[in-house]
């Protein structure tokens, strides 16, 4: 039986009738057309589909859209403030934190979760924080520098 859900995504409220088995990542990409969130492994291993659900980074391939009913979802599209990039996006730009870019949206959403929990992370805490996100290009060093850049820029002011 289909369910009617209302979800706030990047500050905008959407009401849709969906099958309960629809995964959040499919809802975001196919129903809402927000294709910045990527599908990688499809089995909660790679982190490419990471979004924020009610303030917590979540692998949207392992979460039913119906669970987000009346909740708040944030995706990579919601990060920039108009034309101004979010400090994490700036960091990935400045420090060359990506090559192919496939993992980047999930990597940034995970990094944001880390910076919310630990505003001034050490290098090893950054590596720990993104350990659920796989990147096959960079060797991670540049990603770590990008997150460090954002942490310095935010200086505890909330990611």
């Amino acid at each position: 039986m289909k369910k009617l859900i209302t979800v706030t995504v990047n500050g905008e409220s959407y009401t849709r009738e969906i099958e309960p088995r629809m995964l959040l990542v499919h809802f975001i990409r196919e129903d809402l057309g927000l294709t910045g969130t990527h599908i990688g492994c499809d089995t909660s291993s790679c982190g490419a589909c990471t979004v924020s659900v009610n303030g917590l980074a979540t692998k949207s391939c392992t979460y039913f859209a119906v669970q987000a009913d009346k909740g708040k979802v944030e995706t990579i599209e919601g990060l920039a403030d108009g034309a101004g990039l979010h400090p994490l996006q700036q960091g990935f730009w400045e420090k060359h934190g990506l090559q192919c870019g496939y993992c980047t949206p999930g990597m940034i959403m995970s990094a944001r979760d880390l910076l919310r929990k630990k505003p001034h992370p050490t290098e090893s805490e950054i590596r720990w924080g993104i350990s659920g996100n796989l990147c096959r290009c960079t060797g991670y060093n540049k990603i770590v520098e990008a997150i460090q850049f954002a942490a310095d820029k935010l200086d505890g002011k909330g990611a």
Partner: protein
Amino acid sequence: MIPGSFDYHVPATLDEAIALMVKLGDGAKILAGGQSLIPAMRFRLAAPDNLVDINRIPELSKIEERGGFLVLGALVREHQLDESSLIASSYPLLHDTSRVIADPIVRNQATVGGNLAHADPANDHPATMLAYDAQVVARGPQGTRTIPIDDFFVGLFENSLAPGEILTEIRIPKPGAGAGGAYMKIERKVGDYAVAAVAVQLTLTAGKIAAIRIGLTNVAAVPMRATQAERALQGKAPDDAALTAAANAAAAECDPSEDLRGSVDYKRDLVRVLLKRSVNKALARAGGAK
């Protein structure tokens, strides 16, 4: 990779959830963190007709010390354990465990109750709760009962909850003076299941091990205690000879299977090595080390 269809129910109270489980019968599953269930459904290893989502029942998310126990609600997320200063300071075995389950993003959703109720010998909390001598509290149509952890795991993916019963709480006895614990896991990469892991909780009194319980991860079809190893250390001074005897006993009594993570011999040897290391770490903590 799309799960089979199901009907979705979202009770607001525990009583409502129990009534639903009774009414819906065998084809219904509880949805907690979903981090094991949803992948299983995607692979069509599970195809429940109904999901009862307990995530909106507020009383299941508490962490508190009550009546000589640390009480964890079934819906406590792994990241809450990770971030709890009470657990970091007083329950090092639990703290060690929560930090090596899956990865930080999965830990935002994954629950302690789900990790236990799934009864997967590859999961980490079963060994830890066996070492702690924890209790599982379940509520069902007949009321509430407490199940000793030794009676909770009855088979591969099989627990002793009765139909309609829901795991509501896990109770860990508050460690007394001289207590120490540790969890040590070898995994191929973050997010993988253990190749093997050892959970130890012990009490050191006047230089002797007055009490010890040891749980093993992913080296048998059912989460198991290393009772022979416990016997080799119980009442003894923890010298090299006693530790070696215990490590060899654990390696012999576990029953691993060969898979992509390694051969039977390799896994037995890991148990031997990890047992020594985790007992030593628990001893150091019992003596006041961090």
